[in-house]
């Protein structure tokens, strides 16, 4: 066996086949990304986020309309969101010298202490299209000459199976709760982890899995070449899907006698479905329990950090159903699912970053059969990414 060859890793050849994905270290531009949760932005509040190097301030008008403008004051470049100030409806005032911007047009409407200044009405900050869906605020981020953005629905996962009733974003009775955290690591490593059928080992000793005696496979074995299905919704979102609920596609692996390991747990659960969509959205249907959908967004901040959105979605119509969902979120989904269980994933992703950052990991992997799923995603993303974010920073080289 050629030890050196296999030990060094050389995926440069295959990486060529999805070159635009490898180039997307700052993320794909010209897509809709979640900026924050709806309940984070009060009327006349300001929340600052960074997406693909774009600093964006999210604010809310008195009538509830959400607006997004550049979070850098034209004057001296401070972040407007560093100290939110909205004195009048539909404006954001910079806390430093009072430059006041129209939240819809970005126009410099006035300067608080210098109302006759000649600069007023001659300059403006950039604005970003913003929309609110199911408790999340989305913004369209990318090239400022991109033109009319495609509808938000082109970047939202949809239901692509018809055999059950899992929650999806445009459902009338959808309820969501979730959290977001800024994490170390490139957005692609985060996105790939959740789809990867062989990553389940990181959850082998997970506390909830042990406590529930849940039969968590060591991995999922693909039963055919196209076990990872390509999702190409016409005029809609693009992605790939692993249907672990189809035995003809996947069989769980519960033991490996060579290393004398067996999956823990004896309680079988309904198998879930995992799909990964552009520009970096994971949808896990029937997870963490049947009938519930977990969404994850991996929003690039820069080339080494992403905002990790973890969202639980369910259906609820009555006040009682909504209360029950809230109770379960606070006492089950969030502490045990989004934190305890997903922290295994966070650990794995952060541990992966160093190789990709410092050792040109994209060209130096040794991929195995089980990675066909990740490669299918990379190719799909390479085909459908609408552009590239670039570093806006001058102080790095």
């Amino acid at each position, binding site marked *: 066996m050629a030890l050196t060859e296999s030990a060094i890793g050389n995926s440069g050849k295959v990486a*060529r*086949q999805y070159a635009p994905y490898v180039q997307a270290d700052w993320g794909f531009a010209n897509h809709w990304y979640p900026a924050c949760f709806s309940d984070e932005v009060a009327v006349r509040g300001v929340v600052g986020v960074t997406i693909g190097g774009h600093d964006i301030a999210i604010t809310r008008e008195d009538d509830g309309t959400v607006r997004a403008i550049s979070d850098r004051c034209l004057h001296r470049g401070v972040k407007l969101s560093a100290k939110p100030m909205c004195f009048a409806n539909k404006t954001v005032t910079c806390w430093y010298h009072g430059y006041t911007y129209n939240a819809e047009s970005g126009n410099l409407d006035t300067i608080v202490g210098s109302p006759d200044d000649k600069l007023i009405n001659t300059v403006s900050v950039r604005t970003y299209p913003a929309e609110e869906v199911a408790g999340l605020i989305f913004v369209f981020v990318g090239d400022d000459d991109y033109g009319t953005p495609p509808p938000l629905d082109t970047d939202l996962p949809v239901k692509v199976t018809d055999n059950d009733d899992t929650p999806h974003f445009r459902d009338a009775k959808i309820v969501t709760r979730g959290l977001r955290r800024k994490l170390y690591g490139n957005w692609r490593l985060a996105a790939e982890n959740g789809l990867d059928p062989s990553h389940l080992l990181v959850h082998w000793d997970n506390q909830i899995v042990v406590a529930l005696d849940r039969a968590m496979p060591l991995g999922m074995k693909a039963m055919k070449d196209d076990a990872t299905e390509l999702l190409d919704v016409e005029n809609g979102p693009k992605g790939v899907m692993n249907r672990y609920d189809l035995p003809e596609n996947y069989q769980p692996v519960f033991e490996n006698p060579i290393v004398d390991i067996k999956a823990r747990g004896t309680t079988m659960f309904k198998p879930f479905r995992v799909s990964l969509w552009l520009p970096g959205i994971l949808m896990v249907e029937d997870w963490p329990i049947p009938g519930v959908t977990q969404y994850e967004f991996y929003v690039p901040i820069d080339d080494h950090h992403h905002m990790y959105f973890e969202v639980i979605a369910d259906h609820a119509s009555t006040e009682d159903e909504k209360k029950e969902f809230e109770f379960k979120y606070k006492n089950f989904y969030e502490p045990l699912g989004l934190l305890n269980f997903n922290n295994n994933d966070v650990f794995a992703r952060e541990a992966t970053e160093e190789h990709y950052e410092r050792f040109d990991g994209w060209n130096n992997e040794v991929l195995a059969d089980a990675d066909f799923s990740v490669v299918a995603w990379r*190719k799909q993303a390479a*085909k459908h990414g*609408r552009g*590239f974010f670039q570093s806006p920073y001058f102080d790095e080289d």
Partner: protein
Amino acid sequence: MTIVEGTEMTVPPTEPRHIALRFTDGQVREFDADPEEAILTAAKRAGHTLVSQCTVGTCGTCVGTLIDGAAEMPAGQLSALSKDEVSAGQRLLCQTRALRDSSFDLEYPSTLLEAHPPVAFRAKISRLSWVADTVVELELKVPKTIKFGFAAGQYCRIQVPGTEEWRSYSIASGEHERFRLTFLIRILPSGVMSDFLRDGARTGQVLDLEGPLGGFVLEPAPRPTILMAGGTGLAPMLSMLDRLRTVQPTPPILLLFGCNRPAELFHEDELAARVSFIPTLEVRTVLMDNEGRDDLPAGTPLSVLRPGDVLPDTVAYLCGPPPMIRAAEERFGELGLPAHDIRAEQFVPSEN
């Protein structure tokens, strides 16, 4: 179209001429030019810095097409334009004087210059790889402090270290990779840049550059596109493919790529990969001498063009040696493409 040859004058010799320039985005710039003043100079005086490079009539960068009026270039001087091209109305604006009020078409949008004015900068060699017996792929790392950006299809001038010689090369990387530029450079048995790349170049070495230059750029609106490349003329096409790929919806693209012989063929993997992630792209690779590679047709890029490839709204971009371009311009014309939908990078071999 009225093109008046020679010295027929309808305007007194001292009167300024009114000049109109029409860009591909429909924008028109108007100004006055003195009788003895080159159009390029007059435009600059009026605040319109046009695409140009050498300003002495050899590089061909500043070409425009006379559509109305009369304008001539000095006779008996070496020019990047052939007689046919001149009689078809093409003029090098750095050499052209208007005989009376005149209008010109330019093959690039008016926004090109405002978007990316040329800058002088230094960049480090980050990779140098031989992709064929006679072709080097050079990757340069541009410091982020440089305000550099370009439109796919444009080129840079690179100074050969230790000499006063500059050479022009199209950028092969995509617009989004403005900090990591790649160039495809044909290596000749002798020549200052060839000698340098073969014998002297090292990773980490710093080169002087100027750019971006040139008006060989894509139309803003997506149209069925034919890219025809001979040898390292593939470079601007690669950058254009990166741009076209993200256009929604991506238009049908046909790339015709020819090399001399198998040992000079390069980027087969690269092109196959692009076909896999650009569903609307078709590539036809051809070799002048295909001995040992009879899986590829023998001939020129033009020989694998079929009449049905050219649709009424097709736009063609050509880059390669002058004979290939001249033959292709003629053929595309026969197939019904108007001259302004046949864009060519005037490729002037300058190695010595």
